C-alpha cells in the first residue's frame, strides 16, 4: 500500500468475492447485529433488518433523523430529532421508551449491561433503570456523549471542558474530570480503569480513573469519530488518520509514554473501525470506500471492499465474530461470513 505500488490493493489477499452485497437504498448511520440479523440504522426514520439469507425488512422507528444509536446485542436504542427514544428488539418489534417534553433532539443514548438506558437532550442526561425509575442530571453545557461504566451503575457525560461521572443511585456523587475543549464521544475501557473522549479538535483525551491522571492522545489529521476496544481491551482502535491508530491500554499506565500502533496505511482517511469480539483482528473502513480486515499483531491485511463510492459509515461484527456487516454513507452495504 505504498506510493510505489498503486495497484497495491490487487496484490493483497482479497475476500471481496465472498461479500454478499446489500442495497439499503438510503443513507446509513450505524450497523449492529440483533440475533442472526444485521440491523442497518438509517440516517432517517428506519432501521433495515437483513437476515442471513438476505431478506430485508424495513422498520420505522423515528419521524425524522436518527441522531444516535447504541446496542447491547438484544436491542437497539435510538434517539431522534423527533424528541423520542425508541427501541427495536431482535423480533423486530419497536417501542417508544421516552419522549422529551419539549420535543428537543435526543443527542445521545447509552445502554447498561443490566438493561438500564440513558439519553440526553441539551444539557440534561436521563437514566432509566430496568424497573422504570427515572433520574436526570444537568451538566454545564450540552452533553456531547454518554457511556455507562462496564461495572456498577455509573454514567459518564462528556461536555465542554471535561466529563462528569455520576452514580445515578447515589446522591451528590458527581465527579468532574476537567480538560479544556469540547468533548464529544466517550468510552470506558472494558477493565473500567480508563475513560477516553473524542474531542472536537483532532485528538483524544483520557483519564486514568484511579487518580484522574491525564492522557493526551494527539496527532490526528481529522476528528476521531469511531473508536473500538480490541478483544480483551488491550488496545483502543480509532479513526481519524490515514492509518488505523491503536492506543495501547494493556499496562497500568495506559498509552502514557508509548507510541500508538499504526496499521493499514492507505492514501485515504479511516472513517470507521470495529474490533473483532474475540480475536486480535479489526475491520477498518476508509473515506474512499475501502474496507480492510487487519491483524493487530502483525498488521497483515485482507481486502473486504475495494475503493470507490462513498465513505464507509458503519462496521459491526456479530457477537460470535463470524460475520462482518458494513455500510457506506449512501447505503451501499454488505455482509461477509468468515
Amino acid at each position, binding site marked *: 500500500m505504498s506510493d510505489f505500488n498503486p495497484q497495491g490493493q490487487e496484490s493483497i489477499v482479497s475476500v471481496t468475492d465472498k461479500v454478499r452485497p446489500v442495497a439499503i437504498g438510503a*443513507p446509513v*448511520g450505524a450497523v449492529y447485529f440483533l440475533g442472526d440479523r444485521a440491523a442497518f440504522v438509517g*440516517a*432517517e426514520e428506519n432501521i433495515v433488518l437483513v437476515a442471513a439469507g438476505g431478506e430485508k425488512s424495513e422498520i420505522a422507528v423515528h419521524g*425524522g*433523523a*436518527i*441522531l444516535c444509536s447504541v446496542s447491547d446485542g438484544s436491542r437497539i436504542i435510538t434517539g431522534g*430529532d423527533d424528541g423520542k427514544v425508541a427501541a427495536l428488539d431482535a423480533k423486530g418489534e419497536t417501542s417508544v421508551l421516552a419522549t422529551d417534553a*419539549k420535543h*428537543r*433532539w435526543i*443527542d445521545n443514548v447509552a445502554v447498561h449491561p443490566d438493561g438500564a438506558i440513558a439519553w440526553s437532550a*441539551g*444539557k440534561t442526561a436521563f437514566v432509566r433503570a430496568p424497573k422504570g425509575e427515572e433520574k436526570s442530571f444537568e451538566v454545564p*453545557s*450540552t452533553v*456531547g456523549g454518554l457511556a455507562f461504566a462496564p461495572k456498577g451503575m455509573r454514567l459518564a457525560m462528556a461536555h*465542554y*471542558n471535561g466529563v462528569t461521572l455520576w452514580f445515578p443511585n447515589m446522591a451528590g456523587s458527581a465527579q468532574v474530570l476537567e480538560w*479544556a*475543549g*469540547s468533548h464529544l464521544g466517550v468510552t470506558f475501557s472494558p477493565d473500567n480503569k480508563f475513560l477516553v473522549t473524542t*474531542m*472536537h*479538535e483532532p*485528538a483524544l483525551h483520557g483519564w486514568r480513573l484511579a487518580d484522574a491522571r491525564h492522557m493526551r492522545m494527539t496527532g490526528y489529521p*481529522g*476528528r476521531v469519530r469511531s473508536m473500538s476496544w480490541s478483544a480483551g481491551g488491550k488496545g483502543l482502535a480509532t479513526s481519524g488518520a490515514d492509518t488505523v491508530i491503536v492506543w495501547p491500554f494493556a499496562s497500568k499506565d495506559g498509552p502514557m509514554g508509548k507510541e500508538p500502533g499504526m496499521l493499514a496505511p492507505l492514501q485515504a482517511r479511516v472513517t470507521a473501525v470495529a474490533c473483532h469480539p474475540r480475536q486480535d483482528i479489526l475491520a477498518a473502513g476508509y473515506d474512499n470506500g475501502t474496507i480492510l480486515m487487519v491483524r493487530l499483531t502483525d498488521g497483515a491485511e485482507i481486502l473486504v471492499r475495494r475503493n470507490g463510492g462513498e465513505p464507509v459509515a458503519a462496521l459491526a461484527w456479530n457477537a460470535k465474530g463470524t460475520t462482518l456487516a458494513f455500510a457506506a454513507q449512501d447505503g451501499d452495504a454488505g455482509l461477509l461470513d468468515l
Partner: protein
Amino acid sequence: MSETTADKIPVTVLTGYLGAGKTTLLNRILSENHGKKYAVIVNEFGEIGIDNDLIIGADEEVFEMNNGCVCCTVRGDLVRILDGLMKRKGKFDAIIVETTGLADPAPVAQTFFVDEDVQANARLDAVVTVADAKWLSDRLKDAPEAKNQIAFADVIVLNKTDLVSKAELAEVEARIRGINPYAKLHRTERCQVQLSDVLERGAFDLDRILEIEPDFLEEGDDHDHHHDHDHRGHDHHHDHGHSHDGHGHGLKHYHDEDMQSLSLRSDKPLDPDKFMPWLQKLVAEEGQKILRSKGILSFTGDDDRYVFQGVHMMLEGNHQRKWKPDEKRESRLVFIGRELPEQLIRDGFEHCISA
C-alpha cells in the same frame, strides 16, 4: 468555504440587538411564498408563530479552541446541530441561524472556518444584522454587542424607519457607516425587504469578493437625501477624527471612537513573500481587534487575482482567476475592527509593495 459547490447548504446568520426586529424578519422569510424550505436554528422556542418542523433550539454554546488563540471561539452547538441536520439533507434548501440579541457573530462565523465537517456540508452565506432606526444610535453608545453586530454585518436591515424623521435616519445611517461602510444597507418598515437582499448573498464566497467598495449608494434607492455621487477612490470613511458634512452632498460622516474600518490600496503589485507573512503576523498579533478582513490582491509576476477574507485570526485565501486584460491591477484591502492600529497596518502594508 473556498470551494463553491452547489450542494453545500447556505447558512444565513441573523443578528440584531434586542427588539430590532429579527423575529419579524425571520417570520417574513418563513411565511413568504418562495417555494423554499428553511431549517431554522433559534435561541428561544415559541417566539416564532409559524409551523415549521425544522426549527431547532440552540444554546449558543461557545468554546475556545485549544490552539492557544483566545479569540478562536466556536459555536459547539452549531457543529452538533448542523451534523444532525445533514441527516435530513434534501428536506430543506437553506439554514438560518438566529442569534440572541446580545450575541457576538464571530463565533458563528469562525465555526465555518475551523470545523471540517461543517465546511464539507455547509457554507456561510452572509451575516445579516437587523438594526432599530430609532434606538440604534443609543445602543451604539451603551451596548458593545450592538456595535459588534453592525461591524460584522454583510447586510444591514435598518428597520422601523417609519418611526424616525429623515434627519434622524440620516444620523443613524451615518453612525452605521462610521463603523461599517461596506455592508449592504436596506431601509425598511416592519422588515419589508426583498428576500433576495438578505438570502443567497454569497458574502463569504471568495469567488464573489468582487467589490469591496463602500456601499453608500444603493441601486433603486430613491431616498432624496442621497445623490448619485462617485465615492470610489476617496477613502474618506476612516481618515477623519471628527464628524462633518463632507463633500457638500448632505451625507453626515462620523468617526466611531472604538470601531473603525480601514481600507488600503496600491496600484503597484505586492511582493507575495512579504505580504503573506505580514498578513499572517498581523492577524496573529492584532486579530482580537480585527473583526473582518477582505482583500483582492495583485502580486508581482502573478497573472491571477488573489482573494482572501478573514474573521479575527482566521484567514482563508485563494487564487481566484486571471486578471482581465482591461482590468486595473490594483490591490485593495479592508479591515473592520476595534481600535485598529491604523498606522501600524498602513506602514506594514507599504513595506509589502514591490520595489
